[in-house]
């Protein structure tokens, strides 16, 4: 479903019809809540997979591929490179949010690189290098990669849970439709709470809200 259509459907629900010109809830506001809702749905998927299958995973329908991410030298470490993710992926499992990182250059894409945790990152530094393997660690929005290759002439390609392109309301909302109800319930709680608040309609220096 188009991101804009999902938001409009929700607005109609919360206003009991198409919103008027006075509506306080905007497309931008609901769009800003969507990453939270997507993360809640993805986490529910993860929990259900453990309950039903005994193995923790997030359905492929939650993942998007982002490519062309520019790489720069990371001055915080030796032989280290970094790039920025479009957004911080949900923190599900150790590395469910950011599932895959590859590098692209000269018409070829590298093998997937190996994720490390923060603790492993330090440990890895005292190990003998693994041939032909690049290690990476996600740290918030930044991904750091260690290799003796000069990565600045490459770009990064990642697969991550994101809900799609949040800057484009015409883009597809990347969530399996059977998880829309979870997102809607989440939004209803959050935005229904906002709607229930009594606005301060007098400007008299007293915070009445």
């Amino acid at each position, binding site marked *: 479903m188009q991101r804009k259509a999902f938001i409009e459907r929700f607005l109609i629900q919360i206003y009991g019809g198409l919103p008027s*010109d*006075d509506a306080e809830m*905007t497309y*931008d*506001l609901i769009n*800003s809540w969507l990453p939270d809702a997507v993360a809640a749905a993805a986490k529910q998927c993860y929990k259900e997979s453990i309950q039903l299958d005994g193995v923790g995973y997030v359905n492929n329908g939650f993942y998007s591929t982002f490519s062309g991410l520019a790489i720069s030298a990371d001055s915080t470490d030796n032989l280290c490179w970094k790039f920025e993710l479009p957004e911080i992926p949900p923190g599900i499992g150790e590395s469910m949010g950011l599932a895959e990182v590859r590098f692209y250059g000269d018409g070829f894409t590298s093998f997937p690189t190996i994720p490390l945790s923060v603790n492993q990152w330090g440990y890895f530094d005292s190990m003998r290098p693994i041939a032909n393997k690049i290690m990476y660690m996600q740290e918030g929005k930044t991904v750091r990669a260690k290799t003796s290759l000069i990565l600045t002439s490459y770009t990064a390609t990642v697969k991550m849970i994101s809900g799609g392109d949040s800057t484009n309301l015409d883009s597809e909302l990347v969530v399996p439709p059977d998880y829309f109800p979870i997102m809607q319930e989440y939004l209803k709680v959050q935005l229904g709470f906002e709607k229930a608040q009594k606005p301060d*309609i007098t*400007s008299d220096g007293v915070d009445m809200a």
Partner: protein
Amino acid sequence: MPETITVDEMYQIERLVINNNQNGNLTKDKFNLINEQAQYDYMEFLLGDLRRYQFGRPIPPAAWGMTARIRQSLTPFIQPPTSVTVDPATGIAPFPPGYQMWDAMYWSIYRKRVKFIQQERLDSHLNSTINPISRNPVFLSIYTGFEVYPNDIGAIRLSYIRNPRPIIWGSTPDIYGRQVYNPALSSQPEWFREDVIQIMARALRMMGVSLQAAQVSQYADQIKNVGQ
């Protein structure tokens, strides 16, 4: 064109009510003056009479946009969206000629809304990260027009209610000096017939007070409050 009645019919009806009660004559000037006031009083009622506001609930029993019936009464005066240029230095868009009250304001080719806000919320709107002002424009109502943010929005499209045309009973004297209705010198009401009745009731109420005639006032009140 809505079905209405002529200003001469208005004059005849109002004169009949007053003369029936032997409360004096209704002069042309008095008719024109009072009916002009009455139609604005009725418009005020339809737009949302401030006198009917209750504490903590600024919604009168009847207000513009509340029902299709009220909106229909005002349709002769609703102007379709008209382009108004916004001064990029000040953000001010002047009132269009004959402006009475805004209906809606749009911008861009997609006719996205420009939201009305009060001054006390301007800071929040101007500095919002989630709803950037560039994509979520707002306007304030000021004495000379509208103050639109962002100032460089270019032009807006404004749908508004204009003032009603004056109600004037024009006449020329006959050979005996009596005033005879002259349509060429008159200005007809633009309202629907049922709304003209409301205006006449208000006019009669004012005349009743002016003439200290309680029965005229009561008759007018009865029309206003009970119907017929």
